[in-house]
């Protein structure tokens, strides 16, 4: 298959006015976003100008730094684009991080302005929120680097890694999307189920759609009914963009309504299980595509027609190679700020920590699983080591092992019953909900190998004696 999508011209260029030229341009009445109600380009430009005015009045300037602690919302999109128009570096903080995690992130990043929202967010399967955003200046410092966006990743050494991308890299990723066969075309719609704060929803959803003239729709809720209603609400060919869970959820509907406008579903992250993929395509009669990417790079490889499953074709401009069973991506500079770990990026190659292979004959790559302790929880990457270190550092915890088997599961030695009782509460302060163990076993002791190493085999761990009730 060739990569001859609708963009056949010269690659997109990152100019000082890239936000206006590549993202905001278009007819005033052109509906570009749908966050509960349609947002046309005039309204979006107005919302961006409004936030830009606020951020400038707080002193944010070119080369400055701002952190967005906003849930998926029009306010989030407007602040992000406003900060980029100013030429500031934007740190994206997941709104689900606890206050403890957010404080640590702000200590590390030292942004000059923080934008957050007022009041308590409503719960309940929301794909987006209507929030009142408030920007506050703080004693921060200008951006240390020329990157446009920084994101924190769950880190194997406990604290988060700081992943950074330049305008040029973001623009190059948008350009890649335009050159991949099977992406949504101008005039079409995307119903986005993945978070617009993380790379798939941010670049593959928000930025690509704004650039390409594709209407980006967020469903009212992340329920089957609301998602299908969002698809049915428009006549233009529609692509569902989500993670494997969303496919499994939608595929569980035995009698979905006829949706002639549904063109394709594409998922990022791990591969959808074969039987779920078959069920989905049988029930909806559309193609199930697959993408592979990383926060550090964005989209790396795709199989949008489901014809190479489980393999993928590297995206235009991406070079992948296999070394000792690991997939490496050619990247001219390290995507990490303040990290000198040579096992992650060396000599122009990013180590994905994904096991995989590259077929020299076809160029197709196949991802075979993680080589480290990172797991995916609903498409969000969580490093089990971070969870384990956090748990082990809590008062009264003498030892801890965290494993994953369809959910994060922790085993801890906590002799003091009072400390044990307080453990879940302590974790809730320090870890965002998606990082917390789904079940916490308090045990007498942790099983060890003959040489004294902690055993991480879940079957063995489950045989550990529970701590007797006192």
């Amino acid at each position, binding site marked *: 298959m060739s990569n001859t999508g609708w963009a056949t011209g010269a690659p997109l260029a990152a100019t000082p006015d890239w936000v206006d030229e590549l993202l905001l341009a278009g007819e005033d009445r052109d509906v570009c976003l749908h966050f509960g109600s349609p947002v046309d380009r005039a309204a979006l430009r107005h919302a961006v100008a409004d936030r830009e005015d606020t951020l400038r009045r707080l002193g944010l300037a070119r080369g400055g730094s701002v952190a967005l602690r906003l849930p998926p919302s029009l306010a989030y999109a407007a602040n992000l684009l406003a900060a980029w128009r100013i030429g500031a570096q934007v740190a994206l903080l997941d709104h689900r991080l606890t206050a403890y995690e957010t404080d640590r992130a702000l200590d590390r990043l030292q942004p000059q302005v923080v934008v957050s929202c007022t009041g308590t967010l*409503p719960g*309940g399967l929301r794909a987006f929120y209507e929030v009142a955003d408030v920007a506050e200046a703080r004693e921060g410092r200008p951006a240390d680097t020329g990157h446009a966006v920084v994101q924190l990743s769950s880190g194997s050494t406990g604290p988060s890694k700081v992943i950074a991308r330049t305008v040029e890299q973001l623009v190059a990723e948008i350009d890649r999307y335009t050159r991949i066969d099977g992406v949504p075309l101008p005039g079409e719609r995307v119903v986005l189920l993945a978070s617009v704060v993380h790379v798939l929803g941010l670049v593959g959803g928000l930025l690509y759609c704004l650039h390409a003239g594709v209407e980006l729709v967020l469903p009212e809720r992340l329920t*089957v009914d609301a998602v299908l209603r969002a698809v049915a609400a428009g006549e233009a060919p529609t692509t569902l963009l989500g993670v494997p869970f969303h496919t499994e959820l939608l595929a569980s509907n035995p009698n979905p309504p006829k949706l002639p406008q549904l063109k394709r579903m594409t998922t990022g992250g791990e591969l959808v299980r074969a039987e779920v993929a078959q069920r989905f395509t049988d029930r909806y009669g559309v193609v199930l595509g697959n993408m592979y990417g990383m926060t550090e790079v964005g989209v790396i490889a795709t199989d949008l027609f489901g014809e190479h499953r489980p393999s993928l074709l590297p995206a235009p401009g991406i070079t992948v190679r296999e070394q000792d069973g690991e997939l490496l991506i050619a990247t001219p500079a390290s995507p990490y700020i303040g990290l000198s770990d040579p096992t992650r990026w060396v000599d122009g190659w990013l180590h994905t920590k994904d096991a995989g292979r590259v077929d020299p004959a076809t160029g197709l790559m196949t991802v075979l699983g993680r080589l480290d302790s990172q797991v995916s929880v609903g498409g969000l990457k969580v490093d089990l080591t971070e969870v384990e270190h956090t748990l082990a550092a809590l008062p009264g915890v003498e030892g801890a092992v965290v494993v994953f088997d369809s959910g994060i599961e922790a085993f801890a030695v906590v002799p003091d019953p009072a400390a044990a009782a307080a453990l879940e509460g302590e974790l809730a302060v320090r870890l965002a909900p998606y990082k917390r163990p789904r079940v916490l076993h308090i045990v007498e002791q942790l099983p060890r190998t003959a040489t004294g190493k902690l055993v991480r085999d879940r079957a063995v761990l489950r045989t550990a004696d529970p701590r007797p009730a006192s």
Partner: protein
Amino acid sequence: MDAPVAAAGSLGVPRRREPASPDRAEVVAMLAGYGERSPEQVRERIDSLELAWLVHQVEQRHGRMLDLDDDVLMRMTTVTGAVEALAEVLAEPAGD
């Protein structure tokens, strides 16, 4: 000709009896359907993905959309909370 089996509703349409609200074992069984797990692999705490899954399974089983506001959904973050909240929601007449 046989008489209608079920008592007619106010519009004279035989009403299908709705299944009882799911008990704990049934909620666990529905959750286990996600990822094709065994009931033993289902944890007490329900995350947002499982909640979306559970709501859909209940809607399928009862043949009706559930009117779940934020407060109800916030209570459904554990198996126990979900059983209680579903009992209350399903006791209400269907909105259609």
